[in-house]
């Protein structure tokens, strides 16, 4: 955390980090796994995690806050049939690790089992940089980024009254060792720039937000997406909202723009296709593999292997390789997103989607980057085809009831479409639909697939993980828009 704090691990040598800094040895890993299986159990794993984070923000032209944090710990899991025992410790001494292993072992009751002898390291790509330097060596650069964002936002329009810009990043180091011989380690950077803006005109106030990043180093914000880009985007939205009219209410044609509106997929189908819900048969998608769940124009994938993306991982949090998984192909449901437990119990392929928020949490199937592939339609033609409807291009977020399949997502930038033309911007409105049905109404798919700019955080059972979404421009013939107008 401090400039003085030295880390022995150089870029790429993730394993040595825990070995050198905390005195972990392969022998200790084996002892802990042995202890974890001392009361039986089918499987055990250890998840070591060390996170260093920084955050700096500008607010009302002042740098009112800067913070840094470090945390480290280990979570130990024992699986016995469908049962999971879990314990964690933030003290990585051998004593405490063995004690946690014994606590987790209580889930099983039977003769001791032996872990597989020797570890096999998971082959993993290099999807993102593994920073060799400490986060705070770039503090001046980070400050410069938020100041540039602040300046660009204020210069955008005289109606802008408040600007807050913040930069936050973390380096997460993990090491996974399991009784099936799995051994994996990774260094995962994650950075994000955020801008929040208020604009005021007469008695009306409106907000605009923007942000982005990914598993990138700070030069991403120089070379790829500048602070000015995010600042102008937030400012544009705030000013636009000053003139927004009431959103319409009821069922209508809806066109979703490319990129972040892909949150539709995350809520409408993504969560419902996570294997844990389907193993328990508690998802509206349970038993629908091989069946039509979307129009034939729809192909949806989850892909954890995209370079630098927020949802990408070299290895998942169970030490498995990530992959590209086709979830829906030409409207037909192909598979679920699985972790080790689900794939074993359901006897299905393992997709490398076992993730967790931290060492304090049990892993479960989660999405990575989830998107719809491009179709053939020109975005202009899609808009032109709508007589009366809504064109939504930015969203606040969404939510889903897995069991019933009902999902919502809330538009923060949307426009009326009248006779094929975009007319007035509308106020925030929630869109609602039924997951297994909604995508059957996709009648046009644009050729303009885009991924979001790196802002997604997904929550499930109280655990948050970074994710990505993406989509081309699409048209849904029917969707319910929750406004107050006609």
């Amino acid at each position, binding site marked *: *955390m*401090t*400039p*003085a*704090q030295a880390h022995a691990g150089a870029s790429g040598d993730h394993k040595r980090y825990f070995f050198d800094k905390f005195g972990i040895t392969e022998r200790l890993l084996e002892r802990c796994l042995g202890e974890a299986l001392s009361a039986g159990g089918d499987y055990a794993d250890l998840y070591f995690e060390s996170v260093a984070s920084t*955050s700096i923000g500008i607010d009302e032209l*002042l*740098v*009112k*806050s*800067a*913070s*840094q*944090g*470090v*945390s*480290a710990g280990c979570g130990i899991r024992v699986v016995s049939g*469908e*049962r*999971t*025992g879990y*314990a*964690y410790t*933030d003290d990585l001494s051998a004593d405490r690790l063995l004690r946690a292993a014994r*606590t987790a072992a*209580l*889930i099983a009751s039977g003769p001791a089992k032996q872990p597989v002898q020797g570890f096999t390291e998971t082959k993993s790509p290099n999807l993102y940089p593994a920073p060799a330097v400490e986060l*705070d060596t770039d503090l001046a650069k980070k400050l410069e980024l938020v100041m540039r964002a602040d300046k660009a936002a204020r210069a955008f329009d005289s109606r802008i009254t*408040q600007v807050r810009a913040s930069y936050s990043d973390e380096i997460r180091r993990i090491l996974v060792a399991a009784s099936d011989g799995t051994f994996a380690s990774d260094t995962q950077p994650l950075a994000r720039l955020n801008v929040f803006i*208020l604009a*005021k005109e007469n008695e*009306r*106030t*409106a*907000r605009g937000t923007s942000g982005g990043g990914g598993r990138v180093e700070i030069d991403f914000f120089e070379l790829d997406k500048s602070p000015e880009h995010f600042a102008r985007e937030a400012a544009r939205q705030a000013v636009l909202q000053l003139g927004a009219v009431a*959103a319409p*209410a*009821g069922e209508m044609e809806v066109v979703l723009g490319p990129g972040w509106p892909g949150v539709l997929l995350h809520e409408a189908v993504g969560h419902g296709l996570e294997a844990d819900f389907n193993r*328990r048969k*508690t998802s509206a998608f349970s038993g629908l593999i091989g069946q039509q769940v979307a129009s034939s124009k729809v192909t949806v994938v989850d892909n954890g292997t995209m370079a630098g993306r927020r949802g990408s991982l070299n290895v998942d949090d169970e030490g498995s390789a990530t992959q590209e998984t086709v979830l829906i192909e030409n409207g037909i449901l192909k598979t679920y997103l699985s972790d080790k437990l689900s794939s074993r119990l359901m006897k299905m392929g393992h997709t490398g989607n076992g993730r967790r928020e931290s060492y304090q949490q*049990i892993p479960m199937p989660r999405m990575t980057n989830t998107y719809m592939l491009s179709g053939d339609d020109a975005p202009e033609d899609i808009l032109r085809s709508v007589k009366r409807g809504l064109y939504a291009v930015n969203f*606040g*977020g*969404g*939510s889903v*009831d897995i*069991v*019933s399949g*009902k999902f*919502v*997502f*809330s538009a923060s930038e949307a426009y009326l479409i009248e006779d094929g033309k975009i007319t007035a911007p509308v*106020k*925030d409105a*929630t869109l*609602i639909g039924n997951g297994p049905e909604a995508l059957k109404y996709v009648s046009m798919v644009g050729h303009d697939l885009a991924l979001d700019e790196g802002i997604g955080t997904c929550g499930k059972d109280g655990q948050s993980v970074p994710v990505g979404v993406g989509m081309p421009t699409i048209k849904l013939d029917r969707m*319910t828009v*929750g*406004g*107050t107008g006609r």
Partner: protein
Amino acid sequence: MSTTVEAIDLKTLAADIVAKALKAGANDAEVTIREGDEFSTTVRMGEVETLKESGSRGVGIRVLVAGSNGFRVASTSSSDFTPDGIEHLVNGAVALARVTSEDPFAGLADASEFGQLEGDLKLFHEDVYSLPTEERIAHARRAEAAALAADTRITNSDGGNFDAATGHKVFANSRGFVGEYRSSSCSISVSPIALGKSGEMQRDYWFTYARSLAKLETPESVGETAARRTLRRLDARRVKTQQVPIIFAPEIARSLIGSMFDAASGDSIYRGASFFTGKLGEKVADESVTVIDDGTMVGGFGTSPFDGEGLPSRKTTIIERGVLTNYLLNTYTGRKLNMKSTGNASRGLSGNPGTGSHNLYLVSGSLTPEEILKSIPAGLYVTELIGQGVNMVTGDYSRGASGLWIENGELTFPVQEITVAGNLKDMFQNISAIGSDLIFRGSVASPTLRIDGMTIAGE
């Protein structure tokens, strides 16, 4: 189970860290130490699915370095309690303060403002950990079994849970405040799943939550209520887009009380980021509405002896008979508005203090929920809301909803896949009936509320 160092040690440690920070160049400092233990188990379809038991702790420091035009502020946090770890924590924070700005409004409260509530606030009960593991599992199992046994249409379950947790919080600052408190909680919850005629599944849930094991409702009553709530959702329909009176069930209405708090929160007020900005002393809700934040209720879920800055918790009336009477403030937002803190500072391990509620509630009215229903020829009784859909800057409100349709004063068929929308400014003014059924099932509570003039979007 506990891995805690003795309480006296943590208070001493916090004070020591404050002293180290002053020595390292800070003019003021605040230290927070938190430790917690948790136990949770899930039983699904009668079988134990997960069993989790652990504890962790963390320490955070916030330093203030004086300049000619205010303090520079920075903070660090860590899970490393070794002497080296603490030294990095302190030096890191002081070094970080070099890059932040002098802020004339930053700074600790005046020494005269610090203090804490005396006496036993009954926040901690050792009994939450008194049950052996098998008994805890049995609580979760009994709750689920009661739900599964309630009706043959309940065919599946997201499980029954028993959770217990204890926390210990220590706070010290360089103006002489040192305080600590322990808290406990435990809960039983269950989420049954029912199968409808068309093959559609529905789930709902119910829970009991208390600071003491002895105060929990029985697992059976939790299971039975969860089953009843789930069954009433079966075979739900959509309804047409229309404007009708809407009744918010207490467990849903509480989110609206949370929005009232957020709207009155000092941070949003001084920025002009709330639709309550500039409305102090004005009528912001129907005159039947009184909303109170009370940090002093003995045993309350939102009670604490002191707030995130070491000021004593207190009782603040936010809205009195429809008039906005107070903003909710910490020291910083108070200074920005030229007012005094209301003792509503919240705090994580790092970062500047935020604003948080204590026990927040809307004062009961005189009508039973049945009497409120009776007054409505056609309307919606909302039992669940999903999605974020609330814009605190403009008050625009649009959320996914499900519930029961009201016809001639009676609950009839279940409704789903619709939205309810309006603007909070109007919604608060249009509260036309308040129930007598205020019960705290968490730190925020509301009785049943009727609101007129909202739009349902559906078919």
